[in-house]
């Protein structure tokens, strides 16, 4: 009788196996483990599937999920429609339970799906090569900074203050570890874009890279062309982009970006409390040997058939060890395949439609909010699907509490991370916000404010 559904051994089998090994008991196999510390794990005993499921469902129900409210909050994780096909395909055991494709002959599904993912990311970014994923947008930015220093040997990174605060902090952690200097670039209080004059003054021969958002944390679209014009040819231009926005905005690569990174969660991945997300990373072909992460390449097999394989593995830790471009081993391949399925399903027109609707609803909301006494948009710069608003009548906390009573997840509070903006909030709309929801929100805002 098997003791556990995941562990097949019957008592008879255990006996036979012990005989083959030549020991009397399983305990004998642990005789070299010091007996010094006896302990009793303070954990409950084993359970059955149904009891565990019941316990977890109860815990799930204690949470308010985004499908139960109208969502007007983005700030790095976005609520988009996820077509049913995505889960149906990505949950297939051959994808879900497959290992890293180190044996390519039996991993062509993985390798081709990721090769296609790389292609789509490269297209969105307007650059020649992309890797097959990083953990998230934040670590992708951090690794881009480290890569820039590897490329040009300079030691200072200029990073926009208008980037996601968590991305800034993570980049700080990684750069501090390598004694790389980070300098914050201020944004204009008027436009919400990078202050170009201050950028110009900060540029010198020590600067390895400049990092800006596209759009930035405030939803504002930076003028990449103007920024690029200020940079000398050695400076690496790193752009942190929203992948949905990239379907309608000019590709950063075409505007001079050397590295494009970002958070790929909006591409078919559920919000999942912020993880697992998906870091994407694209760069110019000439820098590929300095890029971190696994890369899939095309080749042929012994019969001349097209096949795919991991390439340039000598950059990675399992070969280069201490001299690797990064320590990254496990990545977010499954999330990348989800994104690939999403991008192929939505396709060239679908992604664009999602972007346009997201933009359209945000701009309508912006216009109507501007008309409400006690609410004033902060920035005049062009924006995509998020915009910041100053509140005069009540605090952000009070506003959001009231909105939640009406089953609305209100805008993101900004003051904690950006005290200079005072009592301000960040609104977001996506294609998953209905026009009715917009009107409902506006109605409640007019009442509350």
């Amino acid at each position, binding site marked *: 009788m098997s003791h556990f559904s995941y562990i097949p051994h019957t008592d008879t089998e*255990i006996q036979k196996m012990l005989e083959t090994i030549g020991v009397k008991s399983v305990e004998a196999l642990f005789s070299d483990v010091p007996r010094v510390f006896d302990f009793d794990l303070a954990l409950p005993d084993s359970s059955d599937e149904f009891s565990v499921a019941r316990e*977890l469902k109860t815990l799930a129900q204690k949470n308010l999920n985004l499908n139960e409210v109208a969502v007007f909050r983005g700030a790095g994780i976005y609520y988009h429609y996820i077509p049913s096909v995505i889960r149906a395909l990505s949950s297939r055991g051959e994808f879900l339970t497959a290992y890293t494709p180190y044996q390519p002959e039996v991993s062509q599904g993985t390798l081709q799906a990721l090769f296609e993912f790389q292609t789509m990311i490269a297209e969105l970014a307007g650059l020649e090569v992309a890797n097959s994923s990083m953990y998230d947008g934040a670590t992708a930015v951090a690794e881009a900074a480290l890569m820039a220093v590897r490329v040009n040997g300079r030691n200072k990174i200029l990073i926009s203050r208008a980037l996601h605060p968590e991305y800034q902090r993570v980049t700080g952690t990684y750069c501090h570890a390598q004694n790389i200097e980070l300098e914050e670039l201020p944004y204009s209080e008027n436009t919400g874009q990078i202050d170009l004059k201050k950028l110009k003054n900060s540029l010198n021969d020590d600067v390895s890279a400049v990092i800006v958002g596209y759009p930035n944390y405030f939803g504002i679209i930076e003028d990449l062309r103007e920024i690029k014009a200020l940079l000398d040819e050695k400076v690496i231009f790193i752009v942190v982009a929203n992948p949905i926005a990239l379907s309608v905005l000019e590709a950063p690569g075409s505007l001079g970006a050397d590295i494009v990174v970002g958070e790929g969660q909006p591409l078919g991945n559920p919000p999942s409390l912020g993880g697992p997300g998906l870091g994407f990373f694209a760069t110019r072909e000439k820098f590929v040997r300095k890029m971190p992460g696994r890369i899939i390449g095309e080749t042929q097999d012994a019969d001349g058939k097209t096949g795919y394989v991991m390439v340039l593995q000598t950059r990675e830790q399992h070969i280069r060890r201490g001299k690797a471009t990064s320590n990254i081993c496990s990545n977010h391949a499954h999330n990348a395949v989800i994104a690939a*399925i999403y991008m192929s399903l939505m396709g*060239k027109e*679908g992604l664009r439609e999602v972007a346009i609707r997201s933009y359209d609803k945000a701009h309508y909301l912006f216009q109507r909010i501007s008309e409400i006494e006690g609410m004033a948009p902060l920035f005049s710069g062009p924006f995509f699907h998020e915009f910041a608003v100053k509140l005069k009548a009540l605090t952000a906390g009070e506003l959001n509490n009231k909105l939640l009573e009406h089953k609305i997840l209100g805008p993101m509070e900004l003051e904690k991370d950006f005290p200079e903006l005072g009592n301000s909030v960040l609104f977001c709309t996506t294609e998953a916000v209905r026009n009715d929801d917009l009107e409902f929100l506006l109605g409640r805002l007019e009442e509350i404010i």
Partner: protein
Amino acid sequence: MTIFEKSVSGRKGYSLPDEALHDSSPLSKIPEHLLRKKAVELPENSEVDIVRHYTELSRKNYSVDNGFYPLGSCTMKYNPRLNEEMASLEGFSYLHPYQPTESIQGALEVMYELQRMLAEITGMDAFTLQPAAGAHGELTGMLIVRKYFELMGEDQRKKVIVPDSAHGTNPASAKMAGFDVVEIASNPSGLIDLGNLKAALDETVAAIMLTNPNTLGLFEKDILEISKLAHDNGTLLYYDGANLNAIMGHVRPGDMGFDIVHLNLHKTFSTPHGMGGPGSGPVGVKEKLKGLLPAPLVALNDDGYYLDYDLPDSIGKVRSFYGNFGVLLKAYAYIRMLGKNGLKFASEMAVLNANYLRVKLSKLIPPSHPGICKHEFVLDGSVLVKEFGVKTLDLAKRLLDYGLHPPTIYFPLIVHEALMIEPTETESKDNLDRFAEVIEKILEEARDNPETLKNAPYSTPVRRLNETMASRKPIMRWKAEK
């Protein structure tokens, strides 16, 4: 054929609600030069095309659901479907990290309990669930080491010691944290050479990174002495938890003397490998290092669960938000299913399986280090080269023709033509018997006709691939004009 080649202009695979735009000229507020002139070159396919394409791709993959993966150090155990169902519940998968804490109490409870359970299993005092992978956990651990000595005023501690059998991520992570790496040679038994260790320990050593059992599957029985040597020298001891599957319920790294531990939830705790990720690499520490953990930790007070950012000595954040929550949930479900008796039994069966297979295979290929192993063991394939002129690589490729995934090959580096085998506890005796039979058959083939191995595989979706060509002139994306 790639999905791009299957694309037909005008095909649509999605549907969106029929809603009017508020502005009939969308994107007009964005300056011309910042707009795309041409749509992104993404494919256009119907839903059925997409389903067929990815279904076809999936069928070219080997996976745990298909069969045995005896990969040493990877712990490719069965991925329970209960975990998947729980992780996909709306109440977990549709949460925004910036929702009010009162609205995510269930999620925070899962994380709090997981922090607690992992601490209990490993004998540590506090856990962070932030790191996204094992290597990420190693980096986090190394940053904690660095900050610890900064606060102690001991900036001369610039070195980290690793054994020559260490996994590549160990030196890579130490380097990323700003340390210099010193590799020490193992002794002839494959264990830490105490003499070499003593010689390398001085006031410049910040930490020693170890895994126990080590990558040869051997238990470092001198661990208590190693721990004493390290601590007497003021050096911290770091545990790479990749091999925890061997010892759950038997001994805890915290009790062995480790100060910092990382775990691989996608190994020991059954979360799926997903073609390479996402994993999760929680890091546990002893009390004195708790304040250095990345913020926030999940905490509990009279008002309920909350995110505690009050860690003034924290190393900072290592990724956005709180951790790979979707993965954490799966590990939670697994630990609740197995319970304390199940985790112990899992380790016992993992070790039983490994020793059983070791005994059966040792008759065919000699082990690198004889004697009882833990959850994995290494065979020395150099005999194949000498006797049959075939390499471990060729044996591995021929296994594919028998519908089996090969073991880890050429690691650890200290064994020539290494084959590292970890069956895990979820394989039955029958599977192990079959594996041994197949190895025996392949060795017969090696004797009778080595070319069979050298040109294998034959029956897989593609045959041996030209990796030289692939890396010389890499083609890393599909292009329309070929």
